[in-house]
């Protein structure tokens, strides 16, 4: 995978009702690196993920650049095809549509099925989940793994994981970390949105961005994670 | 037939309750946006009577919400004919309407006829209706009997529970 660059510059985001969630944020991301976006509840982390993906619920000001080209005007599917992937915090169920079907349609290549089954095995995903209606009646852990599975198959330039660690037990966390490491090694820029340290002990983080009340509070390396763990966000 | 019409103005959140043993026609008409109505009713005709219950939830304005729950308890020789209409007009986008009608037939000669109707002319809405008719649960009866309660009394308790549950809402 060739090297890519994703950046937001002076980005602000408002909901349709006019409430401002993100204020003048500038961040950048590169291939093959692991980023953690942390911050207390309500800091705007999820909104950032949705804005990057082009969710029409938000009105934005500022720039989003993929390989130095502005993409704010691109549709969600165009951004996905460029190589941006979002693993949702609470993914929606779609009756009658299986993950296998979704991947086949998204990427139109024959190897998809074998690859999907291979990764499913590695992630300890029960193969019946591959042909059932996606996320319909799946447990929390199963939903997160199915999201990760899609990232592994689609091999995006950037994969954003919105709170993938909530509700996972230790075994599942290890499996998720394994998947993320695999993505990073293959060249994906992995962006992990999370509250706490748990997952981050299994995957070496290169850059930590801390958000608070919609603004960028602090930038640091993986030591910042330990500081937050000891002192909390208030201590920054 | 007794009739009651409620017009729900903009920004209003109305709660409507009723308990009837006679024919009744209830209309809830939305006349402004960002409004809601919650309707809870108990229909319990006297023995050997036939009654008609009509309800209408009419949504004419956007962002209006209605929720209707009616329970009917029908004794011997009686019948209830229920027609419940939810109509969402073309201009009532982002409106939600729900309707639930639950019936218990108390005797061999009880009769229910129910027609929940939906007429939806706007696609950007959520609308659900449900109707159930359930016999008195054998499981529940046996449970109470196993606690030493005579069957006929157990029956009364369950029916009363069905009724009280709605009165409490």
């Amino acid at each position, binding site marked *: 995978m060739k090297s890519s660059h994703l950046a937001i510059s002076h980005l602000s985001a408002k909901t349709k009702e006019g409430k401002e969630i993100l204020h003048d944020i500038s961040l950048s991301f590169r291939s093959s690196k692991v980023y953690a976006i942390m911050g207390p509840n309500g800091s705007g982390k999820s909104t950032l993920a949705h804005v990057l993906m082009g969710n029409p619920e938000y009105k934005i000001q500022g720039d989003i650049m993929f390989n130095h080209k502005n993409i704010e005007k691109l549709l969600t599917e165009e951004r996905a095809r460029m190589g941006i992937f979002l693993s949702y915090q609470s993914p929606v169920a*779609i*009756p009658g549509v299986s993950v296998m079907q979704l991947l086949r349609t998204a990427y139109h290549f024959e190897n998809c099925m074998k690859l999907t089954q291979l990764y499913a095995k590695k992630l300890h995903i029960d193969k019946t989940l591959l042909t059932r209606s996606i996320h319909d009646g799946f447990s929390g852990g199963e939903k997160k793994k199915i999201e990760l599975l899609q990232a592994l198959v689609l091999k995006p330039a950037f994969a954003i994981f919105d709170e993938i660690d909530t509700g996972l037990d230790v075994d599942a966390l290890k499996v998720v970390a394994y998947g993320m490491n695999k993505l990073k090694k293959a060249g994906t820029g992995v962006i992990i949105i999370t509250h706490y340290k748990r997952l981050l002990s299994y995957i070496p983080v290169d850059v930590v961005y801390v958000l608070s009340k919609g603004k960028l509070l602090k930038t640091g390396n993986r030591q910042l994670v330990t500081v937050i763990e000891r002192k909390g966000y208030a201590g920054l | 037939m007794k009739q009651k019409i409620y017009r729900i103005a903009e920004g209003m959140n109305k709660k409507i309750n009723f308990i009837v043993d006679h024919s009744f026609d209830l209309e809830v008409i939305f006349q402004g946006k960002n409004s809601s109505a919650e309707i809870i009713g108990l229909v319990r005709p006297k023995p050997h009577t036939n009654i008609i219950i009509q309800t209408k939830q009419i949504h004419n304005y956007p962002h209006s919400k209605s929720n209707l729950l009616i329970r009917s308890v029908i004794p011997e020789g009686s019948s209830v004919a229920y027609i419940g209409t939810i109509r969402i007009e073309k201009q009532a986008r982002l409106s939600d309407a729900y309707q639930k009608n639950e019936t218990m037939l108390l005797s061999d000669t009880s009769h229910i006829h129910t027609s*929940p109707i939906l007429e*939806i002319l706007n696609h950007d809405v959520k609308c659900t209706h449900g109707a159930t008719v359930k016999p008195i649960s054998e499981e529940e009866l046996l449970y109470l009997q196993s606690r030493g309660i005579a069957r006929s009394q157990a029956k009364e308790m369950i029916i009363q529970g069905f009724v009280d549950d709605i009165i409490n809402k």
Partner: protein
Amino acid sequence: MNRTLLPHPYAFGFHTKDVHEYKSKKGLNKEIVMDISFQKTEPDWMRSFRLKSFDVFLKKSMPGWGPSLSELTFADFYYYLKPIVSQAQSWSNLPKDIKETYDKIGIPEMEKKYLSGVSAQYESEVVYKSVQQTLTKKGVIFSDMDSAVREYPELVQTYFGTVIPTGDNKFAALNSSVWSGGSFIYVPKGVKVELPLQAYFRINAANMGQFERTLIIADEGSFVHYSEGCTAPIYSTDSLHSAVVEIIVKKGARVRYTTVQNWSTNVYNLVTKRARVEEEGIMEWVDCNLGSKLTMKYPSMYLVGRKARGQVLSIAYAGAGQIQDAGAKAIHIASETTSEIISKSIARDGGRTSYRGAVKIVHGAKHAKSRVVCDALIVDKDSRSDTYPMMDIQEQTASMEHEATVSKISDEQLLYLTSRGISSKEAQSMIANGFIEPIVKELPLEYSVELNRLIGLRMEGSVG
């Protein structure tokens, strides 16, 4: 899904130049009814049945409910067309013209694959029939209705008109007077016919009426699956399709009847379909309504024997200028009977779908159970969906559950799929197909593929 597999569905809107031996005059009167019977060389009892039915038709009024039928003028149609050839016993004996018609629909492949027998209807008469030896050996009768009247008179006379009496409604009376074609199936005791029996229909000449009459008798402990799929050419004047299907499910027997209807959008499709289900019998209706200008169809089951079961799986799609007024009826007469009705509808581009259903549990049908689920998807602002169910319960020990929801395609689901790089149009198509999936998976394979493709194309706006 392989896009190149099937042609554009409105390629089915073709017609070969009319190849007819005999065409009745336009309109309907006693002489025409007599003439139809004479052309078919029918026994007297069928002729008098027709004439009595015609009297009933004249007296009966149009239904006082449902969509408007005011544009329907009975005098405008031809009620009988007899094609040139009498029944050919094999595919190669068919006249070239007719073979071409069916080549376009793709029958030969299907025939090779796994059809047991095919009754193809060309205009109002069955032209082609091929019944394999295994069926005949088992004692199964799979014939066209016209021949059955002549060849199995006792069987036909015993059951014809017993499930749907002439006076049931105006269109049943019409069909009873001018019926032509349709299938007759008799399955003997204990015989299970594993492969689906199929039939194909076409309306060809302008203003032609289709009045096929089907009668299926499944004797005790037997099983049969009958399926029909129709396509029709596009005409500027209206066409009328008013079929009657009667099914008798005897003790412990099981019948599945699958219909995929895709008439062109100038057709009035008014069908009466009913099954009488005896003790421990099972009736399964799988009904897909995609075409026609107006369809009024409510597959019904009368559960007359203890533990009889009935199920209706219904899909309706209404696009621009279409009204799908479909649903089901379940009448519980005996105890421990169960019924299940699942209806999924999609309305788009100004189309209108209406679910019309009736569940009746009479006094004495102890422990009867019924469950109805109807879900409707309204895709855009011009379309409309209605639900008109009716439940009449007079049995204290019975239980009934009915649920209906109406919604649009969820933004959340669209966002999810587009965030995987799938175009918004394709995402809508996937969601719509996913919505009807529980019913589509009950269809024979070739129908489910065609159906998914059709819905996909319509949702993407590629076809009307």
